[in-house]
């Protein structure tokens, strides 16, 4: 079976984002960019399914700027077989991303689409669920374990513990942190990835209007907390806790 994985190029996990002075957004000039960490987990899971003999082909898709090619090459170096870049310099919202992915899914006919549960830039946590809705497929969100046979059994990280659901295939899975630990691409595989097929398309090729539905009026800094005081001993801390009314 074929597995589709979606990857997004985002600010690197270790970089502290800075709001632009004019309030128009977050400054991404000369900032290190990487694959969204949850998407790395998605790629890794697809590769593991292939290594188990469940998946036969992995197609990685990214919707983003020309530089998202690098993100796709990373996915290819990790072990994806081919890639599709839907190139646009616009910032594309989850709804439009889901519409493009739904069109690609209709063409490619995967049995499973794996995505990160959320991108660490816009923090929406929406694309996978939206894609499942548009395709009429079931969804296994926030997955910490995925088993695929003639159906998918997905263990989900939920507020009250771990929930396991069974999904008919085809299905959409979104990854949580504990699903796996993504591998690093080896140098030979990075070299090999350069010759793997990467097709470039545009949103128009799929007939999807990517005009934004949410207009960002401004982006501002959150209110900052001030560092407080340091106490020198446990006794002092106990006094403070009493002052806060949480200790007697």
């Amino acid at each position: 079976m074929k597995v589709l994985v979606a990857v997004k190029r985002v600010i690197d996990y270790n970089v502290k984002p800075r709001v632009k002075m004019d309030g128009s957004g977050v400054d991404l000039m000369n900032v290190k960019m990487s694959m969204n960490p949850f998407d790395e987990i998605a790629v890794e899971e697809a590769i593991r399914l292939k290594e188990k003999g469940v998946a036969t082909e992995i197609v990685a898709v990214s919707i983003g700027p020309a530089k998202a090619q690098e993100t796709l090459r990373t996915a290819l170096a990790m072990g994806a077989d081919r890639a599709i870049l839907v190139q646009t310099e616009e910032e594309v919202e989850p709804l439009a991303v889901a519409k493009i992915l739904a069109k690609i899914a209709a063409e490619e006919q995967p049995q499973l689409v794996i995505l990160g549960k959320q991108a660490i830039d816009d923090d929406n946590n929406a694309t996978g669920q939206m894609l499942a809705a548009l395709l009429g497929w079931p969804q296994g969100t926030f997955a910490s374990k995925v088993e695929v046979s003639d159906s998918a059994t997905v263990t989900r990280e939920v507020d009250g513990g771990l929930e396991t659901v069974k999904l008919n295939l085809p299905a959409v899975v979104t990854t949580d942190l504990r699903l796996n630990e993504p591998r690093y691409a080896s140098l030979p595989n990075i070299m090999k990835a350069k010759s793997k097929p990467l097709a470039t398309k545009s949103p128009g090729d799929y007939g999807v209007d990517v005009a934004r539905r949410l207009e960002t009026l401004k982006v501002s800094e959150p209110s900052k907390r001030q560092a407080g005081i340091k106490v020198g001993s446990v006794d002092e801390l106990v006094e403070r806790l009493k002052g806060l009314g949480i200790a007697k």
Partner: protein
Amino acid sequence: MSVLVLVEHDGSHVKDATLATVTAAAKLGDVHALVVGNDADGVAQATAKIAGVAKVHVANGAALEHQLAEAVSPIVVKLMDGHDAFLAPSTTTGKNIAPRVAALLDVMQISDILSVEGPDTFTRPIYAGNAIATVKSKDAKKVITVRTTAFEKAAAEGGSAGVEQVDVAGDPGNSSFVSLEASKSERPELTSAKVIVSGGRAFGSSEQFHALLDPLADKLGAGVGASRAAVDAGYAPNDYQVGQTGKIVAPEVYIAIGISGAIQHLAGMKDSKTIIAINKDEEAPIFQVADIGLVGDLFKIVPELTGKL
């Protein structure tokens, strides 16, 4: 404007997340609530008492017991014929269902709102809360998830709404519930606890994490949280995780022990009223947000603290 709120419940009780979502919804218009479950009439009756709720819709069915998104979404979509906005709390249930509803309505969801600035304008955190975006929705209907720590809880008593049964569309039948491995705890839930003690990787093992933190939490009547590092290392289960992609908490007092304070962790707790940090590294970033800090070895400090409380 007529607003539909998805009620978060466990089959018998309405969760606090619902009350905060009702407050957010009331800023937009008349609040109707939707209770989905199996045999959920008791929850519907409790919902009818929430101050500010004008009407309760209840959808009952065996296939709805576990509120799977595939079965719940069509019910919401149908009810949205008569409503202008759909609000769900940013819980794992709300985050599972709301985007599915949004796509079926061809609406871009407004995720995790912090405030209602107008009928179509909201603030929401982006980049792990390192920036706050003010966004204006151009969609005719709104689908919104609500960061529950950002809104006061509506009073659980005081309302007297009518309850109406909803016709349940057929179960799509493409997903089914298998099991729930529920974390068993007598302690307060993180999202509603007044005090939270939270531990990091510095505890070194699951045994030490629990041996040191549990007695302290018991003394304070606190919920127990953890950093991602502690959860990844297996010291604590996943539902303990506080942070950008875990639980967002805002207790009266948050005590971070052996947690350095990565931005992803701070994103989940920096709205706490008072933050206390205990860490052996006095340069740890957690001290930059802490109101009260104590530098030292947690293996000495925590037992001493527990003993003196």
